[in-house]
């Protein structure tokens, strides 16, 4: 719908105080064009980044102070986990490509839609495999007698991998939500049971997927960074 403005703006020049209508103020207030998801996600990631920057500085200081610093041996399964997480970024990329091919007319049952939820589901599975793998890594360490309080390095390993896992869990929840909505709206026979998920128009869906993807890739990059910090940086 078109909203009435306080006064018709045609033919008026705005030469005071910067760009007026048509300038940068007020862009994207239409729901479909709104950038809020992406902007909000950008700032959320800035905050999460600061959390890990602070923990990194604590790690560096703590290591610098400790003459008897002894890192734990890296559990081999972490290679596998990392591979799964990096792969999940590619599957999510495939999902986004599929999303660009989805049109409103092909909403239910189109090939692009099938590809979309297929790739999203695969991303979910890979994320879940990563988290299970992380738990296996924790179990390996505890079987070796390395617990949270055993050494400063083990403390940091459990803390950083645990916090990263929690953040990834948020990403999994978001993708699961999107995935379920797409299933419901695009022809899976479970529509009625999922009405509580709410409605999502295609343009808004695109933006939410974009924001979620930004988050997911960042969590992947964060994990690679943490791995390097914990096991490669001396």
């Amino acid at each position, binding site marked *: 719908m078109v909203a009435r403005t306080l006064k018709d703006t045609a033919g008026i020049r705005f030469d005071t105080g910067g760009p007026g209508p048509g300038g940068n103020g007020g862009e994207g207030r239409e729901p479909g064009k709104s950038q809020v998801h992406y902007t909000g996600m950008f700032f959320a990631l800035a905050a999460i980044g600061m959390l890990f920057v602070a923990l990194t500085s*604590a790690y560096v200081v703590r290591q610098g102070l400790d003459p008897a610093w002894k890192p734990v041996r890296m559990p081999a399964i972490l290679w596998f986990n990392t591979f799964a997480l990096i792969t999940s970024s590619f599957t999510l990329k495939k999902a986004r490509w599929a999303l660009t091919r989805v049109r409103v007319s092909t909403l239910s049952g189109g090939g692009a839609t099938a590809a979309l939820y297929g790739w999203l589901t695969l991303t979910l599975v890979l994320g879940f495999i990563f988290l299970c793998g992380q738990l296996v890594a924790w179990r390996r360490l505890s079987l070796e007698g390395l617990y949270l309080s055993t050494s400063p390095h083990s403390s940091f390993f459990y803390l950083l991998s645990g916090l990263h896992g929690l953040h990834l869990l948020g990403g999994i929840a978001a993708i699961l939500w999107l995935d379920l909505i797409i299933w419901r709206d695009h022809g899976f026979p479970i529509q009625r049971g999922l009405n509580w998920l709410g409605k999502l128009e295609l343009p808004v869906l695109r933006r939410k997927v974009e924001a979620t993807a930004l988050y997911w890739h960042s969590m992947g990059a964060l994990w690679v960074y943490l791995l390097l910090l914990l096991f490669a940086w001396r």
Partner: protein
Amino acid sequence: MAGPAAVHEVRRSFIRRYIFSVDHKVIGIQYLLLALVSVTVGMILSVFMRLRLAWPEEKWPLLQQLMPTAFAGGPMTPEFYLSMMTMHGTIMVFFVLTTAPLSGFGNYFLPIQVGARDMAFPTINMLSFWVTFVALGVMICALFVTGGAPISGWTGYAPLSALGEIAGPGLGLGQTLWVISIAIFCVASLLTSLNFLTTTLNLRARGMSLTRMPLTVWAWFTTAILALLAFPVLLAAGILLILDRVGGTSFFIPAGLIVSDRVIPHEGGSPLLWQHLFWFFGHPEVYIAILPGMGVTSHILSTFARKPVFAYRAMVGAIFAIGFISYIVWGHHMFMSGMSPYSSMAFSITTLAVGVPSAIKTFNWLATLWGGQIRFTAAMLFSIGFVSLFVSGGVTGLLLAQPAVDIALHDTYFVVAHFHIIMGVAAIFGIFAGLHYWFPKMFGRMMSETLGKVHFWLTLLGVYCVFMPMHFLGLAGGLRRYAQLTEFEFLRPLQPIHVFISVAAFVTIAAQLVFLFNFFWSMKRGQAVGPNPWDSTSLEWTTPSPPPHDNFGPLEPVVYHGPYEYGVPGASKDYVMQTEPEVEVGR
């Protein structure tokens, strides 16, 4: 919902409208009320502190009956004093000075002032308030658990805060609740910041370019950036502290620590690490408290001097400069903690540099007043009071920024005076100014101007009587954090000053009853007003008082002017609303 979709007021149940509301205006008022409850609690705690400091040996039979442990043996125990000190600082800094100016006024007025219908993420906004509410609840619980509230100060310095019960009463469950509450609060502040930043960047009305935003919006925006990047660091510190306390780790606890004749089984941690993390958050936090007050002050001075803000762009630049510098000065809290002289010098220089943008702001405020047709409303008085307090508190900051001076004064009342005036009272004056100015918008009625002015003068004189003598106390060596100073020969002659401060504090606290009466009475009985009682220019004054659910009704605001077009030569009135399309400007 943001955007033109939500133009009609939706009928909602009472609970959805006033309790779990997603309306930014309701949430703003919820935050203000939460701050009002917190400030009352914080003030009561300070009464206990002042009782003990002024009359350390005195017995209080009535209080002893109410709180037998706290007054065991007659006079108040030093541990109880310390727990009051800790909780006073914590509640005031987090639940008053962070919530009221930023989350309270910011939530209510930032969306309206940029022409949005709500925050970008209304549900997250509701969540942020209720998470804050939970944090306050947990913090209040710390007052009532076994062992009492923590005694480690609002800065929670490790290892005292990390060791647990063995280190003192209140350091067991009380301290654990304290850390958990702070961590929860961090999350709530992050959610608030996300909304502020996204709303300002993405949901401005047509024509609302960045340079047409009121300085209040600039202040909230900058504050939100500070909160977004500072609170995660405190959250990280809090998580490490919780792990030290309950997980057996040694992030902050050094090796070989002996407490109560027992060797603590931790090793290798660094208490300094806590201080670095805490103050990396803690210094921006000071500006989180004061920057919104600066924005409100600029806005109100301009409105009631009927003049544009002097050097708008310089004001914006100064806000950003202060915000930026606040990240590189944290070391000045740690001159006493052991630091290389070179680091001290660097932190000293950056700290002194804050004086430059602060002076720009102060002189611009004076220039805004210069030659204006000043209307001395209560809001205006509080804003002028803010400038006065900002200068009084800021000048002592320049003294304390020098390591050699700071080492002498750091643990004295001089520092208490400094940070109370600049961070506490100045920010509170900003809140009072904002309340008087925006009350008609929020509740559709005026607050009593007479009572407002009585409240202003009593409070201004009161706070100066409370905090000015503390400078002398500090210069004479009066130690802060101690429950009792009469034990020291050289401090005994200063005891009358403590008595004077306590009496002044009680009078000032009593004067706040005038405000409370005015606030609640005016809500019901104040004079009803139209949309724009102050002849102001910004967007909130184009809407009815109070504004409808979607702020602007069916109209979509379009902005044509900067926010401070007062006294425009040749205009028919002495102010031009931001939304007025045509104006005859004789240049």
